[in-house]
């Protein structure tokens, strides 16, 4: 055999090449159908399910900047927490209507994103990681100081949600919570999926691949970066809002470094820059943690740690990345 070059494509329509990347696969349909299974097979796991969906949305929003634009943030909890407190405070103030509350959370996070975006476009790489972290920690301290408003370390109490759509109250089993989170997740996913597969998405990957070249092809990178940062923050805020509404409680923890780090871990675990990476990562991380913690409440993270290490060693670029690679190899062999 000789040099492996692609089959002569002169005949093939180039659009097909690009469409191949974006077309909706059966596997995806399956995946989303599968998310409904818990209702039938695991009705007592719905609360966990809703929290997984929330984490998945959070991870997905992070993937936008980390996986696609290549801007690593270690402070994404800032948006998550900001959204959470917004949703929580509105409900506490007496307006417990979930959907409008969620929109408010999104808007608040968007504003926060807009304000911080001015700072973050000026830096990159390690500095960016640390600045995002720093901003998040600052926000955390502010929330802690604003005891009168946020309840500080005790957490925000008295959050009361009205029934969803005036019909479904948030029940002990978490049926409403799960359905609600799932719908929001799916909706957001569709939007973000489209965004990823748009020219804008392509330009984000361009920024990730070579920020120096972008201006030379006439791309105003910093606007793009700010836009995506704001969008990402907005969806993180939605995730936070969801958590506040479904748990009817907000704690400082929503703004903590751990949150930021944990969500990044989930994303990388699943595979950054892969659309489904965040979802898979959140799913596997949270389920693994829940199960391990039940088996061994004191030392479970020993096993979780091993899991992370194993994944990174055997499936570089996360679970999806690794699988993709194995699949490709297997295809070539065949």
């Amino acid at each position, binding site marked *: 055999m000789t040099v492996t070059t692609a089959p002569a494509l002169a005949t093939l329509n180039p659009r097909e090449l690009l469409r191949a990347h974006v077309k909706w696969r059966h596997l995806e349909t399956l995946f989303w159908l599968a998310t409904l299974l818990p209702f039938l097979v695991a009705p007592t796991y719905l609360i966990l399910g809703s929290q997984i969906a929330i984490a998945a949305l959070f991870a997905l929003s992070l993937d936008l900047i980390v996986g696609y634009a290549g801007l690593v943030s270690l402070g994404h909890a800032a948006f998550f927490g900001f959204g959470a407190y917004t949703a929580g405070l509105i409900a506490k103030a007496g307006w417990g209507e979930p959907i409008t509350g969620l929109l408010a959370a999104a808007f608040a996070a968007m504003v926060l994103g807009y304000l911080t975006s001015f700072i973050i476009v000026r830096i990159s790489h390690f500095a960016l990681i640390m600045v995002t972290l720093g901003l998040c920690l600052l926000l955390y301290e502010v929330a802690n100081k604003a005891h009168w408003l946020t309840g500080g*370390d005790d957490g925000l109490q008295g959050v009361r949600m009205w029934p969803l759509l005036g019909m479904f109250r948030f029940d002990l089993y978490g049926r409403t919570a799960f359905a609600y989170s799932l719908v929001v997740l799916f909706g957001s996913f569709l939007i973000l999926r489209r965004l990823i597969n748009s020219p804008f998405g392509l330009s984000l990957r361009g920024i990730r691949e070579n920020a120096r070249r972008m201006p030379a092809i006439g791309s105003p990178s910093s606007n793009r970066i700010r836009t995506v940062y704001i969008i990402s923050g907005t969806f993180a805020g939605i995730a936070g809002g969801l958590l506040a509404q479904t748990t009817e409680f907000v704690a400082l923890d929503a703004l903590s470094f751990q949150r930021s780090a944990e969500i990044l871990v989930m994303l990388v675990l699943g595979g950054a820059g892969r659309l489904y990476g965040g979802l898979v990562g959140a799913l596997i991380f949270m389920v693994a943690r829940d199960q391990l913690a039940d088996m061994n409440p004191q030392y479970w993270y020993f096993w979780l740690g091993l899991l992370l290490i194993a994944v990174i060693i055997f499936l570089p670029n996360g679970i999806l990345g690794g699988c993709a690679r194995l699949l490709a190899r297997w295809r070539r062999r065949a």
Partner: protein
Amino acid sequence: ADGTVKIGLIMTYSGQFADLATMMDNAIKLYVKQHGDTVAGKKIEFIRKDSGTGGTAPDVAKRLAQELVVRDKADIIAGFSLTPEALAAADVGTEAKKPMVITNAATAIITTRSPYFVRTSTALPQPIGTLGGWAAKSGIKQAYTMVSDYGPGIDSEGAFQNAFKQGGGQIVGSVRFPVANPDFSAFAQRLKDSNSEAVFIFVPGGEQPAALGKALAERGITPKTMKVLSSGELTNDDALKGLGDAALGIISGWTYDHRHKSALNAEFVKGMNELLGGRNPDQFAVSAYDGIHLIYEALKKTNGNTDGDALINAMKGMAWESPRGPISIDPETRDIIQTIYLRRVENIGGQLGNVEFDKVEKVKDPVKEKMKADGKLTADGLAK
């Protein structure tokens, strides 16, 4: 389940506050070892849930509470290392009508958030308020307060200042340090500048008590030069080991010390030493021990009936002898009524330890007493 009673334990088994859970869990093991695992003909079964995932995550705590109810069909939930966890889970207990026995979380208002909360640890203002009152009584004129800048810290600051002022004392200054704060020298300097006669200190357990104590010592602030008053954390075994003689003379108002003299305590300490490989139990341990005792006794009273309201009613007003002394559950607030001990750090046979030199009996949580006085409390102890 008919044959068994399921008790769900929600504690920070892992993470930053894991040591709390270590203490509490071992105390529970000890109690079961001593009193068997069947009560009123029912087998007691524990389901352990870790709420310590990634720091303090109340959403997790609440989820765990919900799952204990809907999946594990737990009859009683106990534990709650931290205030936010308890507060987040309050509604679960209320909706599911399941008793929730708090064995640590110490913010005063928790029990006012659900009629199914019962507390066997302490409401911080209990010991701290007592300490403040005692300080004023014992003729201390001025005090400076230093607390960690978070819920419990702020609670104790308030409690001490109120009690101290009511007793005629004067607060000459106060400062709050960040929760994460590796170095205290700046605050030590401020304290020194204040030339106050006495200082009240609250820091959470862990590495900070020792660090703070050392910083004070480096500034020449020791009980010899300034009266140092504090909660129990600053004078627990680990802290004292780190502090050394600089700690001699620190006065603390607290609920429990393993040196407390009583047959029951001696047995308790002995048992805990075995389980903890030589370490001595602290207030976390004893609170959990009492928590399980309360559950056992309540079950006996109801003959194994695990109906939530029945159990809560059984618990209300229950009184017994704990390793820390006589304690009871206030039927109005469902919070603990206990003896607060005033102790001084002394050298006992080459080892530093707390020596009780005074005590105030049957102390209630002053915060809720005030709420009651102001009519802010409903008949069953809930916030209006």
